[in-house]
């Protein structure tokens, strides 16, 4: 066996906070061989990214590294910056999560690739350009000659990620570190990027260190897996061993928490067949337009969209980013005006409602937002945030309000003492529960949930979904559940609606949509979802690729 490209021994990263060193990664030991993919999985805060960045000393100045990191036998820990610089980009290249921020917006992608090449090789501008175009072709960017001259904002998310991969590959690195390379991408694009990375691995024989929290992606790519928790590796092994015979309880828990498409129990809503109740939310032929602003022309985000939601029903709304799902959600709660069509909530027509009319529907609606970090006012204690709708509706004050807030906290399974805490003291999952408590404060008939789990870790997401389901069964509110994650929608919803480019593609019972989709687009979406099982995933991949050809 050949010598590993990356060899990490007893590697520890610590951060200096308030006079003490806090460890973020402790005693890491692993090797990555050429042509192999090693994945580090774990939840946020487990130290997986810190480890990856620490390899090449890319961390903030309050970090320190101990132990040993060897790239092709050369020691990196404690090496002077001049040595590290020679290795960065040339031997070790990084792909980051967010291609929009990782590429410099004021330079063309061609320039940025050429820059990397010319930093490490003695090449003239013309040769470097030829090499850059070759690289862009290799990552399958359409029309590489033209794309060379494009700025990052002129490319789509997937193309940007490809450009970044091209830049990372510019010097044929021995090790490619991919830090959540597909987290910001839609499933269909994610599948393409993963295909590309797999192809490049075999072609270039590089070692890949993949950092991700998505078990499906790991199943798709990894040869070896390290599971991290609280800065330590709790289990390491081959992909097959980890997925099929996990020994550590945390690994088992993590795998169990991953929602699987098509594995959840049947959910049926029984209506009285004779008298069907009136729908809570009616959207009929709704068109929503973002008005013209200055020279930017008006943009139609949603067109001729019709959907009805009945009491006690959860309707999942899925689609890729930019398909208009969030716009529908915001309009359904009166945050956006509709241009044409008819929108009514709980029997009240709000198609042309003014601000005053809207206040009457506020008591019947609630919304849970996507980002737990920005959906709570950082300057208000969470008790006040939760109680605000009740207070504004004039239902209760002072003591009585406090009691109601405490009840709500009980419902979302948070300690009552959290009433006086501030949002920054809570974890993402806890904040999202506060968001639900606030949305449910007025016991609404209709709840809009806009990607409430996309910012959460799998295990947190699993608990959140359980809680959400329990609450829904108890309170029987109707819910429009917006998500890009089909597996989550599969667990929760009774019905599913699929959107593409502002149009409703397909709508129907959960099982008929997810198991027997009629439209191509839906089928493609479902096929692109990676399954957290290496063998099954390989099978699905082959089917998908065969179809593509």
């Amino acid at each position, binding site marked *: 066996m050949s010598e590993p490209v990356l060899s990490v021994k007893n590697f520890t990263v*610590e*951060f*200096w*906070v*308030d*006079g*003490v*060193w*806090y*460890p*973020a990664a402790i005693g890491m030991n692993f090797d990555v061989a050429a042509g192999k993919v090693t994945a580090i999985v774990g939840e*946020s*805060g*487990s*130290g997986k*990214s*810190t480890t*990856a*960045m620490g390899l090449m000393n890319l961390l*903030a*100045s*309050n970090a*320190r590294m101990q132990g040993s990191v060897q790239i092709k036998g050369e020691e990196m820990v404690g090496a002077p910056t001049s040595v590290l610089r020679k290795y960065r980009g040339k031997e070790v290249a990084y792909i980051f999560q967010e291609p929009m921020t990782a590429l410099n917006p004021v330079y063309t992608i061609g320039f940025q690739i050429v820059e990397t090449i010319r930093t490490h090789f003695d090449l003239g501008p013309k040769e470097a350009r030829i090499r850059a175009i070759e690289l862009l072709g290799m990552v399958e960017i359409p029309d590489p000659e033209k794309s060379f001259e494009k700025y990052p904002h002129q490319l789509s998310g997937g193309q940007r990620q490809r450009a970044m991969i091209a830049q990372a590959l510019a010097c044929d690195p021995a090790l490619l570190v991919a*830090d959540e390379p597909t987290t910001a991408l839609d499933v269909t694009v994610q599948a393409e990027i993963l295909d590309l990375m797999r192809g490049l691995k075999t072609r270039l024989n590089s070692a890949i260190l993949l950092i991700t929290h998505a078990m499906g992606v790991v199943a798709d790519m990894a040869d070896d897996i390290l599971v991290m928790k609280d800065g330590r590796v709790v289990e390491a092994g081959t992909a097959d061993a980890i997925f099929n015979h996990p020994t550590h309880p945390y690994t088992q828990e993590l795998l169990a928490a991953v929602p699987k498409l098509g594995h959840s129990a049947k959910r049926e809503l029984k209506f009285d067949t004779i008298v069907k109740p009136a729908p809570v939310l009616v959207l009929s032929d709704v068109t929503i337009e973002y008005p013209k602003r200055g020279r930017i022309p008006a943009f139609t985000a949603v067109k001729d969209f019709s959907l009805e939601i009945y009491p006690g029903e959860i309707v999942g709304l899925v689609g890729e980013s930019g398909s208009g799902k969030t716009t529908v959600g*915001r309009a359904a*709660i*009166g*945050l956006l005006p509709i241009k044409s069509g008819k929108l009514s909530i709980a029997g009240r027509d709000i198609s042309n409602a003014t601000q005053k009319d809207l*206040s009457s529907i*506020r*008591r019947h*609606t*609630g*919304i849970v*937002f*996507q*980002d737990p970090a*920005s*959906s*709570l*006012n*950082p*300057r*208000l204690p969470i008790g006040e*945030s939760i109680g*605000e*709708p009740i207070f*504004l*509706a004039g239902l209760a004050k002072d003591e009585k309000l406090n009691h109601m807030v405490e009840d709500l906290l009980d419902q979302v399974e948070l300690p009552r003492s959290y009433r006086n805490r*501030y949002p*920054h*003291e809570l974890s993402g999952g806890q904040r999202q529960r506060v*968001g639900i408590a*606030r949305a449910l*404060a007025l016991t609404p008939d209709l709840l809009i949930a806009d990607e409430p789990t996309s910012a959460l870790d799998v295990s947190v997401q699993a608990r959140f979904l359980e809680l959400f389901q329990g609450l829904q069964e108890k309170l029987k509110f109707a819910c429009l559940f917006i998500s890009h994650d089909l597996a989550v929608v599969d667990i929760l919803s009774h019905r599913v609606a699929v959107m593409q480019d502002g149009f409703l593609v397909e709508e129907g019972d959960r099982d008929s949509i997810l198991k027997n989709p009629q439209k191509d687009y839906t089928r493609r979406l479902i096929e692109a979802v990676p399954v957290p099982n290496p063998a099954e995933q390989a099978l699905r991949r082959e089917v998908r690729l065969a179809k593509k050809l």
Partner: protein
Amino acid sequence: MDAAENAIANREVAGLTQREIVLKRFLHHRAAVISMVVLGFVIIGVFSGGAFSFGPIHYPGWWKYGINDTPPLTQCGNGSLGCPTMSLWPKFLGGHGITIGEHPFGQDDIGHDYFALVLRGAQRSLMVTFIIGFIAGTIGTVIGSIAGFFGGRIDNALMRFVDFLITIPSIIIGSVIGFHFGNLGALFLALYLGLFSWTGLSRLVRGEFLKLRELEFVDAARVAGASNRRIIFKHILPNAVGVIIVSITLLMSGAILLETALSYLGFGVTPPDVSLGLLISQYQDSFTTRPYLFWWPGLLIIIIALSINFIGDGLRDAFDPRQRRRISLKERRRGGSPKADA
């Protein structure tokens, strides 16, 4: 990586309210804390020492001379008249001992006690500064909030008005005002200057509002049924308070210099009243012969402006969560093992 860092950052602030975090960070800023103490001493000293009237109340001050007293000029050792009697040089080192004497800062041509003049000048300058800070702060915050929150046509109209005001240099506005209304006194000068120096602040507040109003908690408040008024005052303004406080302090340190410049040019505070700028302008010719007449008011201006600037700096660092203290090499070497999680 973000998440990991957040977890660590959260440990740093666990169990503290926003206000406590800001206070803690502010107290870590050494220059700001020292400036706070210095400025406090200057304000207390200046307003307790010199006489001032506020409406019907007249406070005599502990300093024995007023600005209109003309005691006889004292003779100094080298034969010149009215030189400072303060000495900080102990006798055993060959000096006159640590004493402030009869006229610590000296006397002017006709015998006015210069210490009394400087006290009054500093009172005026500080008053002008705080009034400008208050008025400009209020107007700037209100205009900026309205423009940023409502956007569209209102924003356009207000910001074009701001553009218009910005094109006129404040020193020219000040001179015109001073020329016409200078004899109305320092109070009116401060009021007028305040009416013209809020433009930069309103821009900053507008920007902050534009950013904050897109955040989801504002939508959440709207869905909860909050009125525009409540959203502005309860949800957005408290989150913008950092920007506002910081720019008001910086605006104030600019104001003290503006007042000085105007008085120096003869458009600000006019005799018989005194301000620091006026004192400097009156005695600029004496710089070579009697430098103390120039140095004392100058030193006071520098002390006040610098301390307000440092305080503003400290506040900015305190309010900006991205500002983290750097580790010194010593601390890095000392290391130490992490303490157990409390």
